[in-house]
């Protein structure tokens, strides 16, 4: 394989923070043969001062005007590499971006290409560009699923060609120079479309590709205010008029077509401004100013399009450029390999010195915050936070409505949509059918992440079997986090249908196919061994308890035993279902309430009575049944249903005693969350709970399905202010020593490094 040299051109004005983020992200590019050319426009911030730290590693050039095409041409003239790549200052490339591009240019016919662009946005992540096409009339279709989608062009232009987005496009330097570089009329937008079209018209192959990903985090500029509707949109009109007039006739479109297209575009902009005004997103003044500027743009674009020649690099200018055989200035140095990961949104980088290169890890979780909070999702989120703090790059694959990427608390979160179009033979078994289809969609996403981001290890939960197909494929080592097995739950809930049986068998297969097992407690190991009758290899198993983010000391509310409050609050958190012990709690509450009239109960969690058969038997859900049986306690037992994460933390902070009498928990993250606020806890001596709650030290443990003992334990603690204080404080200490997310991430890191070092697959 030929190893091309790249000149990476970054054009920037007033965006010092995103630019710094990009430069730090480039340290981790897997392909080392590239130089970085930063062309700084008439900036008003401290960009140049920031770049001083990169002296000797980058080429710095200045552009006198805020003109993107002129800036690109300055970068092109300074380039020494075989290939010239352009990336925006507010974007971050995937790990293998340049390596993939190098491979693509092994095709000697290829003149230009570029890949997929994800817009990273907290609320509206989306694909910005994917194998786009454009016509000679400035019509653009930027997102297509394949080359064959929209093969019949949707617009009026005759000539359609592939186009790349300016933040992810690469060309052979010689080809760019042969067409005179960028047309400097385009001060913003359409510069990328124009260059692609001119190369095509020269008989060159321009072919955007499906992968080769860049993550774009749009930042405000002189031309637009990000996340608002304000911008110099008239520049688009000007560029589109000019583009259509210059390129339309070359593609076969007549004057009438061009005139109609220009009017459509102009009219569309005017309608849009009116819509913005009606929505009160712009003021009346802004509205009129935008309309006037629109006319200015249309006139200017028409005049220059009809009357003026194009503004490209002249042959004399090109001849004065650096000698083409001059070597590039490598950007990466000996410390690049051990730079911690960087947050593309905030630019934050953990303050940590690494002695080994950070890892690139892929975590799987069907549900994931901030949209869905549940056990596995919360645990995965905490792992991601901890791993990022240790300097690793974390990707999370979760379920979503559309293909999109966001960045949340230290991890790239890849939303993965799926359709049940595979495994049609299993339609009769809906749960298995869903699991197989989702797991296959995850596998395809994993393959993309291997290709683009170079993930080295995949970590899947046993629950929902996200990693089943990936593990079976054997293409990358899969670590399996063991929690409660389906077969255990089926036993508790007495599910005997074929769907449950097959799910349990597949779970067993997943355990066998996993490269490494990571249970959260000894109890989990014992339970899984028992239900699946297998003995794990000791060198492929490590118990790692869950960890959480400790809240700051000022948020901790230990029980005030010197001045006990008049009313006490007992909190329950969990789904309302048999397995969580809600029926035992309901039996215990009236006894406690009768003895202690100043105690109230808060029950937090979604009702799950339809799943465990309670609804069918009683004709009402848990809350309604309790209220019907004990109407006198209606004012003292409050059912909240599912609540937001913030509200949940408030409940933990405000309670005096935490109770969760689960019949089985593989670990029991909820106890840690209560201990975080120095709350004493009551649980059952079942599963992994005793490994979290130390009986008599941080809380009390009772036997499962023993409501009398549960009531007694509650009465004991609620009548002893000193105990409430003492046990709560001991719980907080235990958490800080053993159960923080950083401690958990350290242990996971050790396991991952072991897996990668051993090259274990299965």
């Amino acid at each position, binding site marked *: 394989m030929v190893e091309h040299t790249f000149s990476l051109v970054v054009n920037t004005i007033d965006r010092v923070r995103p630019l710094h983020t990009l430069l730090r992200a480039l340290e981790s590019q897997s392909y080392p043969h590239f130089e970085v050319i930063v062309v700084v426009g008439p900036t008003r911030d401290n960009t140049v001062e920031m770049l001083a730290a990169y002296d000797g590693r980058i080429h710095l050039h200045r552009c006198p005007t805020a003109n993107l095409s002129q800036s690109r041409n300055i970068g092109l003239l300074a380039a020494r590499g075989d290939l010239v790549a352009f990336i925006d200052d507010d974007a971050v490339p995937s790990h293998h971006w340049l390596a993939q591009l190098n491979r693509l240019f092994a095709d000697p016919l290829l003149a230009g290409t570029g890949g997929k662009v994800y817009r990273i946005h907290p609320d509206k992540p989306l694909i910005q560009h994917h194998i786009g096409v454009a016509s000679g009339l400035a019509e653009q279709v930027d997102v297509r699923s*394949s*080359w*064959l989608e929209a*093969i*019949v*062009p949707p617009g009026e232009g*005759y*000539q*359609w*060609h592939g186009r790349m987005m300016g933040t992810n496009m690469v060309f052979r330097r010689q080809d760019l120079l042969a067409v005179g570089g960028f047309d400097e009329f385009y001060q913003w937008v359409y510069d990328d479309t124009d260059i692609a079209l001119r190369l095509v018209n020269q008989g060159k192959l321009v*072919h955007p590709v499906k992968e080769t990903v860049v993550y774009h985090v749009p930042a405000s500029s002189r031309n637009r205010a990000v996340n608002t509707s304000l911008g110099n949109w008239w520049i688009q009109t000007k560029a589109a008029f000019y583009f259509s007039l210059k390129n339309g006739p070359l*593609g*076969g*479109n*007549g004057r009438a077509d061009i005139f109609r297209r220009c009017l459509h575009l102009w009219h569309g902009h005017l309608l849009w401004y009116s819509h913005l005004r009606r929505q009160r997103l712009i003021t009346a003044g802004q509205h009129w100013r935008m309309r006037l500027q629109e006319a200015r743009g249309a006139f200017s674009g028409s005049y220059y399009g009809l009357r003026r020649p194009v503004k490209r690099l002249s042959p004399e200018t090109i001849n004065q450029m650096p000698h083409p055989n001059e070597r590039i200035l490598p950007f990466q140095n000996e410390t690049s390999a051990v730079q911690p990961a960087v947050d593309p949104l905030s630019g934050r980088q953990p303050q940590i010195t690494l002695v080994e290169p950070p890892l690139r890890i892929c975590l799987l979780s069907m549900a994931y915050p901030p949209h869905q909070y549940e056990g596995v999702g919360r645990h995965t989120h905490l792992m991601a936070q901890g791993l990022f703090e240790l300097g690793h790059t974390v990707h999370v694959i979760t379920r979503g409505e559309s293909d999109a990427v966001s960045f949340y608390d230290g991890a790239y979160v890849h939303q993965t949509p799926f359709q049940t179009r*595979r*495994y*049609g*033979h*299993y*339609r*009769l078994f809906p749960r*298995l059918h869903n699991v*197989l289809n989702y797991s*296959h969609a995850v*596998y395809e996403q994993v393959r993309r992440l291997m290709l683009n981001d170079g993930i080295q290890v995949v970590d899947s939960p046993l629950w929902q079997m996200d990693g*089943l*197909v990936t593990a*079976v*494929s*054997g293409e990358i080592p899969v670590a399996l986090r063991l929690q409660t097995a389906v077969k255990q739950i089926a036993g508790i809930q007495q599910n005997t249908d*074929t769907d449950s049986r*097959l799910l349990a*068998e*597949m779970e*067993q*297969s997943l355990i066998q196919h996993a490269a490494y097992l990571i249970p959260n407690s000894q109890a989990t190991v014992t339970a899984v061994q028992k239900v699946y009758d297998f003995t794990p290899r000791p060198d492929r198993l490590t118990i790692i308890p869950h960890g959480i983010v400790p809240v700051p000391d000022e948020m901790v509310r230990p029980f005030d035993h010197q001045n006990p409050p008049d009313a006490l609050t007992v909190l329950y958190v969990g789904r309302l279902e048999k397995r969580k012990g809600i029926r035992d709690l309901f039996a215990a509450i009236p006894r406690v309430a009768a003895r202690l009239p100043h105690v109230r109960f808060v029950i937090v969690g979604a009702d799950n009575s339809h799943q465990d058969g309670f609804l069918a038997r009683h004709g009402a859900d848990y809350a309604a049944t309790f209220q019907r049986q004990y109407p006198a306690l209606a004012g003292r037992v409050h059912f909240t249903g599912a609540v937001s994460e913030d509200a949940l933390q408030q409940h933990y902070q405000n309670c005096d005693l935490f109770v969760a009498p689960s019949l089985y928990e593989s670990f029991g993250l909820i106890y840690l969350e209560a201990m975080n606020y120095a709350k004493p806890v009551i649980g059952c001596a079942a599963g992994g709970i005793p490994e979290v709650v130390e009986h008599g030290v941080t809380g009390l443990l009772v036997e499962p399905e023993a409501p009398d003992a549960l009531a007694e334990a509650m009465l004991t603690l609620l009548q002893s202010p000193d105990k409430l204080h003492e046990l709560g404080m001991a719980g907080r200490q235990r958490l800080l020593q053993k159960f923080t997310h950083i401690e958990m991430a350290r242990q996971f890191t050790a396991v991952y490094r072991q897996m990668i070092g051993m090259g274990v697959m299965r």
Partner: protein
Amino acid sequence: MKSVLTAQDVLSDIEFELVQGAISKDELGRGVVQVKEYQNKLRSELFQPGQKHPDWQEVAARQFQLNDMLLTLLQEMAAAHQERIVQARRQNQQRSPQTVVTTSTAVAPGDDTIWRDTSDIEDAMSETLEIKLDARPTNIPLLGAWLHRLKYEIHSLVIFYLQKLAQRQTTVNRTYGDWLLYFDALHQHQDGQLQAQLTELENRLAKLEGKTGENV
């Protein structure tokens, strides 16, 4: 006849799906259909009856456009071909020769009823009914153009309503298809259970006959 599904069956299906992928035949087929439809549309637009001279510049531009589309198709076919070669290599590396792709090893030879191919139903479901205008010019002198115009307008009106009907029929077809697939899966399942019970019955009869023989 295999009556009970096992994890091994599911794993076989996962491995089968793993060797699938890339661009599907259907996608290329759809691309070809789109180009053909587009060509037909252009033909009727460019060579309108009654029009003396087609706009040759327009014709040439459209022809280039069609060439571009065909080149795209060729490019995709080449990519798909390449992908299949890679997959075939991978398949050879990963799969043992004994592994049967679509059926479990426990299925009796020649038995094709368990995993019946339902792709024809699925293909039919994805098709959309479309009625094309067919108003050929008439050769009657003087009144020909006028008659043709009238015929064209009437046909267009009829086709407008037929098209609406066709859209509804497409929905009906899809619903039928869904139910057919469901019944097909249900049938397979029940067939399996029935066979298992028959086998069980035969075993018991055999045992009973054995016992009766001993008593005799």
